[in-house]
C-alpha cells in the first residue's frame, strides 16, 4: 500500500442538533460548512473538492439528495460526490475526503454531513421500514428497533451482561452532553431512570436510545504542505478502515461485530498501532443505543469481549477516566442526525486533540484519538485514527 500524502483535519464546524429545525438541509449544510471553513481560516475558493454524506433519501422525500444538497454544501463547479453507507456515513465521508487528498488528486477537501429526519411525519422511523427485505421481513411488520433489540439481547445472553450495566452508558453520555453547546438530550439521569423508562422494543428502553434529529457537521481536510501553511494545530488522519459483513443478518453471530474488528485492523495497521488499548487516548464510538458503545469498544479491541460493561461501570470510560469514551456526549446526549452524528464524532476528536474541546476537554493528555461509526443492516463500520 502506498499512501502518497499525509492528510490533516484543519477545521471543523457543526450546527445545533434538534428534533426539528427551521433550516432546510441545504441551509444546515451551509452553516456547518461555513463554520468549518472559518475555523480553517480559508474560503470556498480554496477548496479543491467536496464530499457530501447523508443517509436515506426517504427522510426527506427527496430523491438524489446529493444533488439536492449540493448548493448548500459548496460543491458547485467542483469535483463533488455523495457517499452513503447508512449510519456509517458520518465517519465514511471523511474517509472518502481523506483519499481525495491522500491520493494527491487534491490539496484540500471539504466534507459535509447532513441529516434532516424531521420532515418525515409524524416520525422518521417509517423510513427505516424500507431497508428491510420486502419479501421476507416487511410482511412481519418489522421496525428498525427490532433488529437492534435482537442484537442487544443476544449480546447480553452470550456475555451475561445486565440491562443495568448497559444503562451506565446512557447515564455517562447524557451527562457528558451537558457540556456540549449543540446537545439535544443532555441530562443528569441515573441508572434507575434508564431502567424505569418505558421499553420501546425490549431490552431497549427510551433512555437507552438516541433521538431522531436535524443537524449538520463538517470538516476541512488538507494535504501536509497546505495544512502546515494554514493551520497552527493540524490533526493528522493516520489510519482509516472500513468493512462490511453479509446482509443475511439472521445468519450471523450478533454478539460480536467481526466486521468492525476487520475495519479497526485496517486502520490500526495503517496508523502503526499495535496496542490500541495503550495507544488510543480518547475514543468517539458510535452510540445510537447504549449497548452499542460497549459492542463497539469490544469490536475495536479497546475492551475484551464481554468486558466493556465492567469497564464502564468502573468509570474507565468517563471523561476523566483512563480511556475516555464519547466525551462529546455521543449520539445519546448530543443527538443523532445520522450522517451528521458520525461527523460530530470526527469534529470532537479534532477538538480534543487540538486542545479546543472547552469544557469537554478530557483530563489526561491526549495525542491519539479514534472515531467510529456503524451502519447499513448492522453490518458496516468505519474507523478513523487521528493524531495531533
Amino acid at each position, binding site marked *: 500500500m502506498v499512501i502518497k500524502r499525509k492528510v490533516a483535519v484543519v477545521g471543523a464546524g457543526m450546527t445545533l442538533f434538534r428534533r426539528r429545525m427551521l433550516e432546510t438541509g441545504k441551509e444546515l449544510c451551509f452553516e456547518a460548512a461555513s463554520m468549518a471553513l472559518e475555523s480553517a481560516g480559508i474560503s470556498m475558493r480554496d477548496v479543491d473538492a467536496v464530499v457530501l454524506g447523508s443517509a436515506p433519501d426517504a427522510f426527506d422525500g427527496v430523491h438524489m439528495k446529493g444533488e439536492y444538497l449540493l448548493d448548500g454544501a459548496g460543491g458547485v463547479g467542483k469535483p463533488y460526490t455523495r457517499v452513503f453507507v447508512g449510519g456509517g456515513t458520518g465517519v465514511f465521508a471523511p474517509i472518502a475526503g481523506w483519499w481525495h487528498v491522500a491520493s494527491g488528486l487534491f490539496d484540500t477537501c471539504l466534507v459535509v454531513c447532513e441529516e434532516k429526519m424531521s420532515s418525515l411525519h409524524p416520525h422518521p422511523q417509517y423510513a427505516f421500514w424500507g431497508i428491510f427485505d420486502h*419479501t421476507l421481513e416487511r410482511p*412481519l411488520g418489522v421496525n428498525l428497533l427490532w433488529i437492534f433489540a435482537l442484537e442487544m439481547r443476544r449480546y447480553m445472553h452470550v456475555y451475561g451482561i445486565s440491562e443495568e450495566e448497559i444503562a451506565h452508558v446512557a447515564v455517562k453520555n447524557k451527562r457528558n452532553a451537558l457540556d456540549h453547546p449543540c446537545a439535544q438530550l443532555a441530562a443528569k439521569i441515573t441508572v434507575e431512570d434508564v431502567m424505569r423508562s418505558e421499553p420501546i422494543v425490549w431490552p*431497549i428502553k427510551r433512555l437507552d436510545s438516541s433521538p431522531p434529529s436535524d443537524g449538520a457537521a463538517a470538516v476541512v481536510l488538507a494535504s501536509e504542505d497546505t495544512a502546515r501553511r494554514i493551520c497552527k494545530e493540524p490533526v493528522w488522519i493516520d489510519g482509516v478502515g472500513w468493512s462490511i459483513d453479509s446482509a443475511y443478518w439472521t445468519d450471523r453471530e450478533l454478539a460480536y461485530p467481526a466486521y468492525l474488528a476487520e475495519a479497526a485492523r485496517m486502520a490500526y495497521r495503517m496508523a502503526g498501532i499495535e496496542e490500541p488499548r495503550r495507544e488510543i487516548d480518547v475514543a468517539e464510538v458510535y452510540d445510537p443505543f447504549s449497548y452499542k458503545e460497549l459492542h463497539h469498544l469490544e469490536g475495536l479491541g479497546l475492551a475484551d469481549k464481554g468486558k466493556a460493561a465492567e469497564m464502564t461501570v468502573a468509570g474507565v470510560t468517563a471523561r476523566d477516566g483512563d480511556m475516555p469514551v464519547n466525551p462529546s456526549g455521543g449520539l445519546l446526549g448530543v443527538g443523532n442526525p445520522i450522517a451528521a452524528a458520525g461527523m460530530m464524532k470526527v469534529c470532537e476528536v479534532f477538538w480534543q486533540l487540538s486542545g479546543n474541546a472547552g469544557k469537554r476537554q478530557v483530563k489526561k493528555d491526549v495525542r491519539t484519538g479514534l472515531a467510529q461509526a456503524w451502519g447499513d443492516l448492522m453490518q458496516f463500520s468505519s474507523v478513523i485514527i487521528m493524531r495531533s
Partner: protein
Amino acid sequence: MKEGVVKKGQDIGVGRGIEPNPVGSKYAGIEVKESDLRDGRYMSIRYSAMFRYRWDTGIAVGRFLEGLRDGRIVGSRCNVCKRILVPPRVFCELDFAQIDDWVYVYDTGRVNTYSISYIDKQARRMSSPVIVAVVELDGASQGMGIMHLLGEVRPEDVYVGMRVKAVWRSREERKGAITDIVYFKPL
C-alpha cells in the same frame, strides 16, 4: 426576520432529576417545536407520496415461497463450504460459488435471540406487544436462522435456546409468503 438570530440551547427534559442544557453558543440553528407548527409560527408544506411496486421474487426466494405454500421450509446447500443456507440463495456469499442444490430443513428450531416490541412500524405504541425472534432452524447449518414472530407464549417465559415449532396457516390460506407461518410456538 427576528427569528433569524441563533437561538440558545434548549432545556429538553428527560426523565427525573434533569438539569437544563448549558446555554449560549456560536452554533447556528433554529429549533422548531411542535407548537410552533400548530400555531403557524413557521410555515411548512405537507405532502404524501404513494408508490406502487411489484417485486419479482427471484430464483432462490421464489423457491422458498413455493416451499412455504406447501408447508415446508426450503434451504440451499453450497458444495464448496457445505453450509445449508436459509434463506436460500443461488450463490454462496463466502465462496462466491453458484448453488443449485435444494434441500428441505425442519420447521422446528431454537431461539437465537428475541425482543419484545411495544411499537409498530410508524413508532406508534401498540396495545399489546409482539415477540420477535431469530430462530435457528433444525437441519440448517449452525447459526442459520430467519426472523419471525413468537406466539402462544408470554414474553417473560421466552429464553435464548428455547425450542420452537412453526404454526402454519391452513393449506387453503397459504399463498407463498413468509406469513404462511403465523408464528413459532414453544415445542
